[in-house]
């Protein structure tokens, strides 16, 4: 009995330490990426690769506009219906505009966008870097005198930092449009009234808190994806495994970060 207890403690401890090494290495990678994104260019130690960054912005940002827009429109619509179901009983269906507007900008816009981008681009980052690792391309980069973090991670990180707020703003807008769609065609609220109601309900703070979150989300997506790519071992199977892990980990971390930032905004602002 004691032996079993000892054994299970051992397994638990080993798992914990393994987990902690992953965490510390990921923090290390993030620090390196921040150094090469912010400090190194300012000190003139290696500029930013803008061409590659713009290429990534197209891949990560422009190409995910349709899917982000569609999903956020639907979610706006769904929220409006659920809200109307309750509010209509009180004859307060105009407040659908408040509910959809505020929850979209403060919460659902940033969160949904981040989750979609994590699934679409976080996985792509992990798969791409992982395949390069398997093909010795990362080693080739290093022997050619390039830092892999500077060469591969920074353009993707930068692209995400720039693109995710834009996508989120679009998501907010489209989500509100979804609510508006229901209000106009089902609740018989006029376009002007819905617009005014939304404009009254929203304050600048709602929009800003949503956008602040995207900075953390972008960091999580880029670093988790890149880290999972760099630790790939053993061919195609390893790439697949890492890709899956990157999506699961980044979605988990995104929700944790969302919780923490929301808690801070809720209690202080």
């Amino acid at each position, binding site marked *: 009995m004691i032996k079993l207890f000892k054994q299970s403690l051992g397994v638990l401890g080993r798992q914990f330490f393994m987990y902690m090494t992953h965490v510390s290495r990921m923090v290390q990678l993030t620090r390196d990426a921040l150094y090469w994104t912010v400090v190194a260019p300012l000190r003139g130690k290696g500029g930013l690769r803008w061409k590659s960054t713009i290429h990534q912005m197209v891949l990560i940002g422009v190409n995910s506009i349709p899917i982000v827009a569609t999903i956020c429109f639907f979610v706006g619509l769904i929220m409006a219906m659920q809200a109307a179901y309750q509010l209509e009983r009180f004859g307060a269906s105009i407040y659908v505009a408040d509910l959809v507007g505020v929850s979209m900008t403060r919460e659902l816009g940033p969160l949904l966008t981040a989750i979609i981008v994590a699934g679409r681009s976080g996985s792509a980052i992990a798969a791409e870097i992982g395949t390069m690792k398997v*093909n010795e391309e990362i080693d080739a980069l290093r022997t050619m005198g390039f830092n892999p973090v500077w060469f591969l991670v920074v353009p993707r990180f930068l692209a995400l930092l720039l693109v995710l707020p834009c996508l989120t703003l679009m998501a907010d807008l489209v989500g509100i449009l979804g609510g508006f769609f229901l209000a106009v065609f089902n609740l018989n609220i006029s376009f002007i009234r819905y617009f005014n109601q939304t404009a009254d309900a929203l304050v600048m703070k709602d929009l800003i808190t949503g956008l602040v979150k995207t900075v953390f989300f972008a960091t999580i997506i880029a670093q988790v994806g890149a880290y999972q790519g760099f630790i790939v071992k053993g061919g195609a199977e390893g790439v697949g495994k890492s890709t899956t892990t990157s999506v699961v980990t980044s979605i988990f971390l995104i929700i944790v970060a969302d919780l923490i930032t929301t808690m801070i905004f809720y209690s202080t602002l």
Partner: protein
Amino acid sequence: MNKKPIIEIKDLVTYYGSRKVLDGINLQIMPGETMTILGRSGCGKSTLLRHIIGLSKPSSGKIFLKGQDITILTENQMLSIRRKIGMLFQGGALFNSMPVGDNVALPLREHTELEDSTIQIMTRMKLDQVGLAGFEDFMPAQLSGGMKKRAALARAIAMDPDMLFCDEPSAGLDPIVAVGIDHLILKLKKAFQMTIVIVTHELASVFLIADRVALLDEGRIIALGTVEELKNSTNKKVQQFFNRIPDPEKIDKDSYLNSLVGENNKL
């Protein structure tokens, strides 16, 4: 020949997990020399190469490149040294996301201040040297194995390195293409006076290009010298390698039985 060695390895020891991969390697390579590191699969020869170019750090021992100890350098300090090194990886390791021309031009674009038109001309020159003129716009996936190796070689020599390292240059190629790569390396050696280190298990390549051979076995250098010297060596393992004699089959009934039923724990 009283020149100083360009590459010097002193008492290099490396562990892979708890397994000793390299066990006290001492080796000096002179400028302009072609050194082949020969050995059977898994003897640690690729690991040795990775150490020389600083991709992995050894457990103990020192490696001097042009008198500079690279085992104490940080990754960022290594970057500038590596610009004077060309490396041909086993699978070529071309960047699959960019065309062949960009692959070759990449180090020139990032490490030099040259005009783009100059870089284009240099890229074509390098590709021409490896017999791939006119292939700039092909993607690596469109090339055959031998062409990939050639393109990778063009990329390795793009910065006119003093030292060229090749990891199994003829692995996975048919004999005719393989000998073509060997001749290419010879041609480059004559043209640029580079120091070349080649890791291989291909005897035909060794006879053709090696100035000196280091035979590696279980993490140690068991023989070092010219091809002739090694051919005439009396060392059993050297003879086994050069005469292509297979390992003797083990005929021990008990251990065979044990290995089948998995009863290894009656120690």
